[in-house]
């Protein structure tokens, strides 16, 4: 049982890290702010979700698991809001010279 | 250094030290909550009480011949914090308790809440910050723990900086920002030294440290960092750049307190550090560097003072020079030689007489600026006839700066010159004499036109109040009277100092 859980953890975290990496590459390589924003929010949400998912079997007790999920939910909320705000600011500034 | 056991137990009368600190703190909190013109009333009402407490502390030390100690929270150092007052602390407390109220009563005309308004910006800020300065100074003079003193230094900075730019002119904002950056640099370096001392000895209590400190690398680095930080706050040449614009542009009563007391707060800590915490570390090289910088400050500050066109800037540069004298005490007063006690007394007397003289001069300059509408030195012709009391106060203060008898400045410089001759360190004596001549020059630059008769009588915008002139004059008189300090005064100053350090075999 615990071996299966460990394997699950490793696989989930590795996949999550890959999405983080992809998001970072997107941030560095994409041409303008909106596409960069897209790369970051999409990849990070997925990446963090997978990492939290992977850590759940390792959490000690219900409270620990709940805290992990709370972390994920808070980051989702903050990420979504900030992405909205940045996009709004960009739209207001247009057209760029 | 005190005997260890007696330094770690509360003495009778120790509660006075707590009162001296919390009284102005209560004043700050009350002033902010009740607000309006009550801030002024609270500040002025608490000032006589604060003076009484300072006096009571001095009397208690005089009576018992021993320092006062209070252990806060009942936690004995190293875990807890102690407050201690020796002779030097008591003298500084009393000085602050005289200069702060003088500036306060003088400032009533500058910082009144306008009629018909409940609260105004500058008065509320001034009266709360003035009390904060006083609280911070009292902690600096009484603190027995190096980290507690860090908090006190920050309190001092946060109270002093906004006072500089209360009138909001751009040049005062620049001066305040520069002052703040220098002060922050100073406190962060001080804090770094504190960290290293704690890491090495596991205590920050001054008395416990002095028993444990040995000459080792961490201590040298800590001493260097803390001294550098405190020098920036004391504005010793070449870290003086922030001082002249800040002190010259602040409102006159604030300038008086800043120049008389605030720079002395960090100087007080340098003395504490080198004479009380690190006596095991008498490094000739370090004391010579301090004195060399002091000598440079005397010459450089005086020459720049000679070239200023505005009265308040002249006085501010003279502060740069007079701070220089303080540092000449380091090579002369360390090492426990026969002349050390004289040098130490001279240094302390210079602190006191400069405090009173400079406060008097800044207040006098403030009166001049208010009544003429400017403070250009070239246009002061005939001032002596228009405002005789003010010019007299300025002149008496100048007497002390020059070091002419009979004045506190004379007694201080006499003791220092005597020590430098006895110790064979002639150079410092020569610098002090040159500094006296230069001070004579810049004081003369003001007095000569002021006492000359103008072809047309000087036009004053508004008449000055006699009582405010009297405050400046009274401070100047104290600076002069310090020159007549009896021998008992110096015995008092030595209370709480170790016999070895004081050079009394």
């Amino acid at each position, binding site marked *: 049982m615990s071996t299966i859980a460990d394997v699950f953890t490793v696989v989930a975290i590795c996949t999550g890290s890959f999405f983080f990496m992809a998001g970072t590459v997107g941030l560095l390589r994409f041409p303008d702010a909106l596409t960069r924003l897209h790369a970051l929010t999409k990849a990070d949400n997925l990446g963090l979700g997978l990492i939290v998912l992977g850590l759940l079997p390792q959490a000690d007790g219900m409270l620990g698991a709940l805290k992990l999920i709370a972390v994920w939910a808070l980051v989702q*909320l*903050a990420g*979504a*809001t900030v992405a*909205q*705000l940045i996009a*709004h600011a960009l739209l207001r500034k247009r057209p760029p010279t | 250094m005190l005997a260890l056991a007696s330094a770690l137990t509360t003495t009778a009368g120790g*509660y006075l030290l*707590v009162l001296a600190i*919390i009284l102005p*703190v*209560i004043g*700050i*909190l009350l002033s*902010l*909550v009740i*607000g309006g013109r009550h801030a002024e009333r609270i500040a002025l009402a608490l000032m006589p009480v604060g003076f009484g407490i300072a006096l009571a502390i001095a009397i208690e030390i005089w009576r018992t011949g021993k320092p006062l100690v*209070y*252990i*806060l*929270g*009942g936690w004995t150092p*190293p*875990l*807890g*914090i102690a407050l201690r007052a020796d002779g030097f602390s008591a003298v500084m407390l009393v000085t602050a308790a005289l200069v702060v109220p003088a500036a306060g009563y003088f400032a009533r005309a500058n910082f009144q809440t306008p009629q018909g308004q*409940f*609260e*105004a*910006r*500058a008065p*509320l*800020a001034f009266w*709360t*910050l003035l009390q*904060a300065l006083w*609280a911070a100074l009292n*902690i600096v003079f009484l603190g027995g723990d190096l*980290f*507690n003193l860090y*908090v006190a230094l*920050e*309190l001092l900075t*946060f*109270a002093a*900086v*906004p006072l500089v*730019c*209360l009138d*909001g002119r751009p040049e005062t904002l620049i001066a305040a920002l520069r002052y703040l950056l220098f002060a922050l640099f100073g406190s962060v370096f001080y804090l*770094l030294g504190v960290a*290293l001392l*704690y*890491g*090495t*000895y*596991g*205590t920050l209590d001054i008395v416990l440290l002095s028993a444990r400190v040995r000459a080792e*690398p961490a201590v040298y*680095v800590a001493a260097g960092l803390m001294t550098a930080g405190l020098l920036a706050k004391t504005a010793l040449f070449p870290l003086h750049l922030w001082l002249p614009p800040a002190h010259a542009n602040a409102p006159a009563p604030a300038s008086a307190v800043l120049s008389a007391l605030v720079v002395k707060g960090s100087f007080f800590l340098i003395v504490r550090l080198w004479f009380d915490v690190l006596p095991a570390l008498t490094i000739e090289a370090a004391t010579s560097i301090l004195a060399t910088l002091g000598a440079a400050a005397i010459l450089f500050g005086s020459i720049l003072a000679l070239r200023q066109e505005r009265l308040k800037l002249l006085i501010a540069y003279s502060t740069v020079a007079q701070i220089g004298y303080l540092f000449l005490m380091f090579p002369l007063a360390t090492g426990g030689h026969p002349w050390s006690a004289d040098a130490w007394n001279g240094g302390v007397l210079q602190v006191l007489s400069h405090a009173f003289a400079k406060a008097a001069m800044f207040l006098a300059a403030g009166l001049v600026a208010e009544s003429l509408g400017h403070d250009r030195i070239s246009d002061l012709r005939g001032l002596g006839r228009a405002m005789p009391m003010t010019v007299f106060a300025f002149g008496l203060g100048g007497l002390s700066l020059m070091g002419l008898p009979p004045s506190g400045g004379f007694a201080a410089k006499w003791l220092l010159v005597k020590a430098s001759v006895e110790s064979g360190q002639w150079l410092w004596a020569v610098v002090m004499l040159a500094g006296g001549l230069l001070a004579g020059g810049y004081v003369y630059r003001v007095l000569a036109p002021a006492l000359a008769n103008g072809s047309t009588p000087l036009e004053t915008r508004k008449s000055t109040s006699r009582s405010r002139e009297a405050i400046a004059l009274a401070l100047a008189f104290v600076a002069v009277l310090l020159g007549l300090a009896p021998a008992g005064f110096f015995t008092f100053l030595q209370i709480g100092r170790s016999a070895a350090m004081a050079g009394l075999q």
Partner: protein
Amino acid sequence: MTVLQALDIGLAALVLAVAGWTIVAREAFAAVVGYVAYGLLLSLVWVRLFAVDVALTEAAIGSGVTGVLLISAAARLRKTEAPATDERLGAPLRLLAGTVCAVVAAALAAVVLLMPDPGSTLAPEAAQHLAETGLGNPITAVLISYRAFDTMLEKVVLILAVIGVWSLAPDRYWGGAPGPQRVARHEGALAFLAQLLAPLGIVVGVHIFWVGADEPGGAFQGGAILAAMWMIVMMARLVEAPSISALWLRLTLVAGPVVFLAIGVLGFAVASGFLTYPTGFAKPLILFIEAFMTLSIAATLPMLVMGPPSRPPRP
């Protein structure tokens, strides 16, 4: 080398790289954003040093609240950067400064390497008296009992900073409210975030203050979270910034130090002196003081971030 050691070295390298970036970055705004990231990385370093209380404080105040302050300042100062670059020091002076800084850093590194291990410590003394305070978290014991005087004075420092910031207002705005004018347009997303986050954050803030007696946390960390919640609802325009003359605001600002001082003075009468607590009552009194301090910090930090009043008082 273990994995943990490799991670430590990686973390240190990352901290230094981001720190270097905040110094060399061309634009102040970029440097400030770097600084916020730096603060978060630094919190990880504090966790690795087993200083969770400090990590929480660093993340909340050192990185979070300071970050908000600096970012909004950088945004407002964009136009002033170009003229300032004309004043750059010449190369020789920069070289000299660099040398001095390198010498300072090297001396410190040497002292760090020479420091004895295990070093001097007050941990045994702190542990020995912990029972007398009734607390489980020794850091709270140091802050509110052993070195209570420091903490009380530091609260006064915060109040002076508020007075100092307020004193920078133009005379006509005295009595007005700080922060930008209320605008008609709502940022929908921000308002949504604030409505969702604020109740949650208040619970978390109070929780962190409450557990601070026995576990990592306390008045500073809890107060900083409450402060962040107040700032976010003000930023979302769900509530107005208060007038600086409002009595409730003034009372909240001084509540912490006033209660601290009052209980300290009470120690003269009911215990063995200033800032002493009567036997058996230490823990409830400490929590009582901390509750008011949390409140004061929650009010003080936003006031410092919002700056001086920026509009005339309402008649």
